[in-house]
């Protein structure tokens, strides 16, 4: 070892980033006013979509500067769900985005590819058996990992992405038993999806309804949704950086999610 070779982990990482041995992959969708959001029956409260209103744009409202006022619901675009979001997590300690331990904002990821099954069946439900087969091939899911369901759904746009019909949304997601298993048997940090929710589009008809929300948040775990480019990640080995905005008692937050991936 020479004096010039880095030895500290951060120095090693810096060098790896500089040399391209480690790449930074953006897993975030653009916050777009026209982007689909969660849909609730119209008599219930509605989450605001993204709105961008100019304050000035080098004009009479501000001659040399451009800036906007923005507004959106906490659960808009690529976003994180905190335990307080669901009734099962309402009494937990540190259950909101402002109290989320920062140590959890950097965590490894297991990427389970169910894109072929999702292309075949928009209502595809990922099962324990499916994930056990994945583990047999790629290794056991380590505790404290993000489990990311790669469906390639983020390649879709507009109506195809929301995939709504008269019976609601039709998008893939985990089944109820898998969610209980990931939380109780694998102690994951959370589950991430490319769709509008961590639950399947028809997840409200499962038992319990919305099992991803029910189990994850009831156990103090997190959700990531509307992720993009999961196809760029290896099955294991990527490091996820997902730091939500520090919103007082926030139930969730849009955020920039990036992955560090070895080349």
């Amino acid at each position, binding site marked *: 070892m020479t004096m010039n070779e880095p030895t500290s982990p951060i120095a090693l990482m810096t060098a790896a980033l500089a040399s391209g041995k480690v790449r930074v992959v953006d897993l975030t969708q653009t916050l777009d006013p026209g982007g*689909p959001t969660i849909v609730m029956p119209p008599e219930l409260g509605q989450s605001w979509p993204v709105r961008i209103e100019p304050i000035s744009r080098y004009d009479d409202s501000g001659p040399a500067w451009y800036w906007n006022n923005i507004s959106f619901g906490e659960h808009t675009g690529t976003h994180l769900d905190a335990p307080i979001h669901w009734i099962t997590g309402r009494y937990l300690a540190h259950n909101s985005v402002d109290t989320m331990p920062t140590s959890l904002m950097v965590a490894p990821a297991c990427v389970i590819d169910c894109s072929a099954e999702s292309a075949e069946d928009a209502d595809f439900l990922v099962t324990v058996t499916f994930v056990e087969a994945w583990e047999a091939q790629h290794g056991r899911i380590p505790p404290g990992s993000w489990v990311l369901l790669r469906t390639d759904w983020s390649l879709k746009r507009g109506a195809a992405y929301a995939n*709504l019909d008269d019976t609601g949304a039709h998008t893939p997601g985990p089944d109820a038993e898998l969610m209980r298993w990931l939380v109780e048997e694998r102690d994951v940090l959370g589950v991430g999806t490319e769709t509008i929710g961590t639950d399947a589009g028809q997840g409200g008809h499962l038992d319990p309804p919305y099992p991803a929300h029910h189990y994850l948040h009831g156990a103090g775990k997190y959700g990531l949704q509307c992720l993009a480019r999961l196809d760029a990640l290896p099955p294991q080995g990527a490091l996820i950086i997902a730091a939500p905005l520090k919103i007082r008692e926030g139930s969730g937050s849009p955020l920039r999610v990036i992955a560090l991936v070895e080349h």
Partner: protein
Amino acid sequence: MSIQRQRPPRKNPLQRTTAPLPPPARRSRAAQGLTRAAAQGQFALHTCQNCQTVSYPARDACPKCLSENLVVAAVQSGGTILSVTTIQISGEPYFRRLAPARQALIVLDCGPTIVAEVRPDCVSGMRVHASLHLDKAGQPVIYARPENGDANSDADPHWRELVADPLHRRCLITDGRNPVTLPLAKSLLAAGAAKVVIGVSERWKPFAVAAKLEALGAVELVDLDLADDQSVSALASDYGAKTDILLHTALHLRPGSLMSGAELLKARDAMEVSYFGALRLAHHFGPVMRSRGADRDNSAAAWVNLLSIFAHLSWPGFAAYSATQAASLSFSQALRAEMRGSGVRVLDVFTGPMEIDWLEHLPPPKVQPSAVANEIVAALKGGEEERWVGDVAKDFRERFAANPKEIERDLWQQ
């Protein structure tokens, strides 16, 4: 006059766009009584309550008995032409552009001898039908056409100045998800509209009537989210200079108590599409429409605001919705003031409860969306500024004018 006017040729892009040039706008306070009648499409003149003498033009006292008790009341619209004058040249810039003009002395059946614009086929001795309209300055004038024969005056450019006929015009409906959209698009096309552009919000959500709308032919569905400034701006970039009649039909109706915690969010969401949506439209579409108010035969002609009668009086159980309507009525008044002199008419269409799913719990009578559509087009063809659609709305207008407290208390009982 029976020949249907052909669609105007495409614009010559090398020529200056004809700028709006309003006619003389000064009128007495008394004359504004005629403005209200013209705005509502009525033929009404000052009538002495003492001796029943009808007078025109507007006066402060009866020319026969000098009573000051004059009321603008509906009168018979028939008359006989005494003489017709063709004015070849005028000192007034507005009339120079429109020359020649034909004006006639007409003895109205209800009494007075008046001076009015007449259709070119009117001659001395002819029986005529007179009607009251707003000119391009928004002031009341009388126009007469032959009593018998074709009622269509469309070939007369002077008539076209008084109305906002959809014929050959390009229309924009701003809220495609309003149930009025399908019948409205049909009515506009039946009236000869060249094209109906329909803004649809959140097109990633199912839009059941899309196929029916597209089957109508000259219809185009476009992205338009009234709550999103960028969306309105983007549409105006393409269609701002091609919108001759803008129909702001935003409908966001949610029941709720003023004291409910949910009301603030509902009110904000409703204001976003109704009132703020109107402001966004005014910002992005208003200036170019105002500048095109005299742009040849298919100029920018009208801005329609579809409003509820509850713009005038809050509807118990629909506090937020009523507030959006009141704000939208205020918007409409402000827009009319800013459009003055441009030739773009601002039309308020007031309806009572419509036959829509949100109001399923209300007993009849409710106004059908198709009736609203037909009356919007009729009001445009008459150049009106205000139309009340359906029995509930008309009843509301009379009672609200007579005693607002009576109808306020009555709404409490419903």
